[in-house]
């Protein structure tokens, strides 16, 4: 190759490097801006809740251990942005066993020393409550259940249907 051919080649390679690095930088900048906007929106929501409740929301949580022991954690202090997993950790002083996070949420295997096992016949289930439909089994993971002021939730430990995996008890 002549010097002129190499020179043109080097110019093209440098131009390509400039294009590639600029594209990558622009992509990073766009992603950063997008995430910043989402974070700012979530922060505004959290501040709005803080101002409404003065940072002192309370929630009610029932834990039914399936052996006759039922604990109501009424008036558990929760903060904006918390979910049911966070509230359960706070209510039980962290006495929760869980695996993380196969489907985008924690999978709780044990609470207060009562442990379910993969080969066992009993497991922990989450329940939501409202005045109209009373207790309903939650159909999303605990991390996706947001707690709010005066919300009511329950955990039960009992056997489940081996086909549908529906718990054979209710709170």
């Amino acid at each position, binding site marked *: *190759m*002549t010097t002129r*051919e*190499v020179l*043109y*080649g080097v110019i*093209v*390679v440098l*131009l*390509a*490097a400039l*294009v*590639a690095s600029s*594209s*990558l930088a*622009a*992509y990073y900048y*766009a992603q950063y801006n997008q995430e910043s906007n989402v974070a700012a929106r979530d922060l505004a929501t959290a501040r709005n809740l803080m101002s409404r409740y003065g940072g002192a929301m309370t929630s009610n949580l029932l834990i039914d251990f399936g052996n006759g022991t039922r604990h109501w954690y009424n008036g558990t202090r929760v903060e904006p942005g918390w979910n049911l997993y966070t509230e359960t950790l706070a209510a039980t002083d962290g006495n929760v066993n869980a695996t993380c996070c196969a489907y985008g949420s924690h999978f709780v295997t044990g609470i207060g020393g009562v442990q379910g096992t993969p080969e066992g016949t009993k497991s922990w289930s989450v329940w939501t409550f409202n005045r109209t439909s009373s207790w309903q089994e939650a159909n999303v993971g605990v991390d996706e259940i947001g707690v709010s002021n005066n919300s009511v939730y329950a955990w039960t430990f009992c056997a489940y249907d081996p086909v549908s995996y529906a718990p054979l008890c209710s709170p």
Partner: protein
Amino acid sequence: MRGASEVAVVATFSALAVGSDFALTPYVNVKLMDTIVFLVAFLFGFRAGAGVAVVSETAWSIVSPWGAAGAITPFLVGGELIFAIAGWWASKTWRDRSKPWGTLAVFIGASMLVCAFLWDFETNAATALLAYWPTLTLKDILATEGYGLPFALVHEVADFLLGMAAAPAAILTISRARYVNK
């Protein structure tokens, strides 16, 4: 190049380009068409490369499994001509093809990367033009360019690698075939 030979080259490589597009359908923005257009212009001249660009891109715009491209087709064809121009320019600039696996491969890969960037920039701008006309603003164009960035990055990297790998092989193979035919 004689007319009949040129028609045969355009027909053969256009068929190869569209066929490879179908084969690579699951890999969005990874296409051999760009490399083929570049190489045809590099080895057979601009007119043959432009012919492959127009025929293959027009055909792909109509028969693509993602659906017909519609009004943006002329912009896609125009963008593909960038590769033909670059291939022709490269053939005039880098005449020493004795060692195509060395620096020439890198130069061709880099040229393909720049072409891919220009293709994406032009077609994204055209998308904005068609989507927002007559109220098109600079912000609309920049936003559309932004949405296309992840695809553009894949396109640029794919064209760089395919240009580096396929170009030397094609230069060696086709040069030998032409020598045998003489």
